[in-house]
């Protein structure tokens, strides 16, 4: 026995045959009810009226056209990351490194934007998205190399690389790519508006972003549920040793799922640059990758449910932004609700599997 055992403990034991037959509606209702109860208690304990808070959380995102476009622009990268994580989760990996993969995607997307601003914009956008995908995939392949080659658990490899990625982007923002005049940790010099991804008139929503995300979702759904590759991926996720004996190159499938996830996260990072922030900022991933992990844990890597859940999470996050202005409470209540939803879903699954 060597330290290779350190990789085994964190095998997710999802999708046991018994729980596959659980009634999803019951689990969903229990999860929602429990999460709302818990969040209400948290709200009451800090003196915030729950109904007013829920009104903001659930409907705040639809209050103005600007909010709706913010919601779409959050849902798009969230959906992309969730798609990627569906692959790694199917392969039994907890890709906590997704935040770093998104950051590196954003950094890589900046390269063509900075070097070739004179190109026709559509070509430049394509280049930026491709560079983002490549950057994210390369960063994810580092995780894969550490995991497959050096048997460093992917959770810690990913976390370490997240810290490194945020160091890289901070260095670029404050160092070589700093604003002309003064260095500011708030971001690099904004890109010329000619190369921003076009938005609907006067709104912040760039229609290309949700379209890219939906195409990715369709591709992932086909890949996971309709191809041999997806089947093999799930076999590796359930039992890598058995999959290896069946002739499936398990290590290769793990690396492929990570690379694909990194590419999707990188595209999400590139979209953050060309469509949302129009510059590189240090916290360009803004926790979207970790939120996507919650989405995927909630839907258990079932691609059919990724879209509604990711959209709902985006609604909560954008809706709660107004909390501090109108109710004087911190907007992190959206995170509490999202976390509680997943926690109570796990609880409900545990109960229904026992019965």
């Amino acid at each position: 026995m060597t330290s290779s055992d350190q990789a085994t403990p964190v095998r997710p034991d999802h999708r046991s045959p018994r729980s596959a037959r659980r009634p999803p509606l019951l689990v969903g209702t229990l999860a929602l009810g429990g999460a709302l109860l818990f969040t209400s208690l948290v709200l009451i304990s800090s003196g915030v009226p729950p109904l007013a808070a829920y009104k903001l959380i659930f409907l705040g995102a639809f209050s103005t056209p600007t909010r709706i476009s913010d919601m779409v622009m959050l849902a798009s990268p969230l959906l992309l990351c969730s798609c990627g994580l569906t692959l790694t989760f199917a392969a039994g990996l907890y890709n906590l490194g997704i935040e770093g993969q998104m950051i590196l995607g954003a950094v890589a997307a900046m390269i063509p934007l900075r070097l070739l601003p004179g190109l026709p914009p559509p070509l430049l956008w394509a280049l930026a998205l491709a560079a983002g995908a490549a950057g994210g995939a390369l960063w994810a392949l580092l995780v894969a190399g550490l995991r497959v080659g050096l048997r460093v658990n992917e959770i810690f490899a990913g976390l370490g690389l997240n810290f490194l990625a945020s160091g890289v982007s901070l260095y670029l923002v404050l160092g070589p790519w700093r604003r002309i005049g003064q260095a500011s940790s708030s971001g690099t010099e904004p890109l010329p508006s000619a190369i921003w991804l076009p938005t609907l008139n006067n709104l912040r929503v760039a229609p290309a972003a949700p379209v890219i995300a939906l195409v990715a979702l369709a591709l992932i759904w086909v890949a996971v549920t309709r191809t041999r590759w997806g089947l093999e991926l799930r076999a590796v996720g359930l039992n890598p040793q058995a999959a290896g004996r069946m002739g499936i190159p398990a290590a290769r499938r793990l690396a492929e799922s990570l690379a694909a996830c990194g590419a999707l996260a990188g595209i999400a990072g590139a979209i953050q640059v060309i469509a949302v922030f129009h510059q590189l900022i240090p916290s360009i991933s803004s926790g979207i990758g970790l939120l996507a992990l919650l989405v995927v844990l909630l839907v258990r890597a079932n691609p059919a449910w990724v879209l509604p859940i990711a959209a709902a999470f985006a609604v909560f996050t954008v809706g709660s932004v107004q909390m501090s202005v109108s109710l004087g409470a911190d907007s992190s209540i959206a995170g509490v609700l999202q976390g509680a939803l997943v926690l109570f879903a796990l609880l409900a699954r545990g109960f229904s599997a026992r019965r």
Partner: protein
Amino acid sequence: MQQLLIDLAAVLAAAAPLIFATMGETISERAGVINLSLDGSMLLAAMVGFAAASISGSLSVGFAAAALVGALVALILGALSLSLGQSQTAVGFVLALLCTDLSSFLGAPYARKPGPAVPHAPVPGMSDIPVIGPLLFSHDLLIYASFLLLPAVWWFLYRTRAGLVLRALGERPQTAYARGVPVIRLRYLYMILGGALVGIAGAAYSLDLKQGWSYRHTFGTGWIALAIVIFGGWQPWRVAIGCYLFAALQALASRSQSVLPGMPTQVFQVAPFVLMIVVLALINLLSSPTAARRLAALPKPLRHPAERFVAWLATPAPAALGQPFQRP
């Protein structure tokens, strides 16, 4: 010389929360349960501990509240994973995020407020001893407790009957069960105990080393504590070495900012996190079959010490770590 002593003493102090957190996690993981919620439960405990101490005006109430929060998070993790069969990793990760957001939401009224702090308490008489006085005996009670916790955990794990049973929970739970050990109940006990230590680690920041409360107050130390436990091979002494090494690296990083003024300051702060991963990779590289073959090809006088060194470095994880326990 004087400066070096001050620096070393500062490193010993700065590692105290890490010692509490990693010892708690070591106890939990040696009993076979991964508590991945560390980062979140430390944050929530730091916030609750600070709030409780501010409201009550009593430090012990603050630390007790923090320990209670850590224990409660561990209890929830236990209920979902040990009793309801959910993945320890999944539950732990969700709890980490949930507790982080809870700490941000509930802690907002306490952000950047002054509050009580553990008072400096040099040991009378002993703090005047040259070298070891300023190094070991010129801290506060919490730091002394961290010095004592390490040998206590080691002694418990390796020198007591209960410690032997604890290690059996992580290595051969089935065997322990056959010998009449209540596996699930004891796993609950040790992960709650470990969780309480993690809670104290959180309060060690908000009430002592980084006094006060602010958004994401502990900056990812919970995650690094998890990595240090692996780095230390689940053995208290090596885990502690990892903690002190990490604290020393962070001190060096903040020092090198003045040496290399061209580099932005924040870049150095990520260095220890990255180095930890590199070291983990190196340990695994050294213990790989290829490396073993290389070692076997070494000339004899070199081979034995080298092999011993590698065997010492590459300690296996507890065999049943993270595995659900089913009654036979």
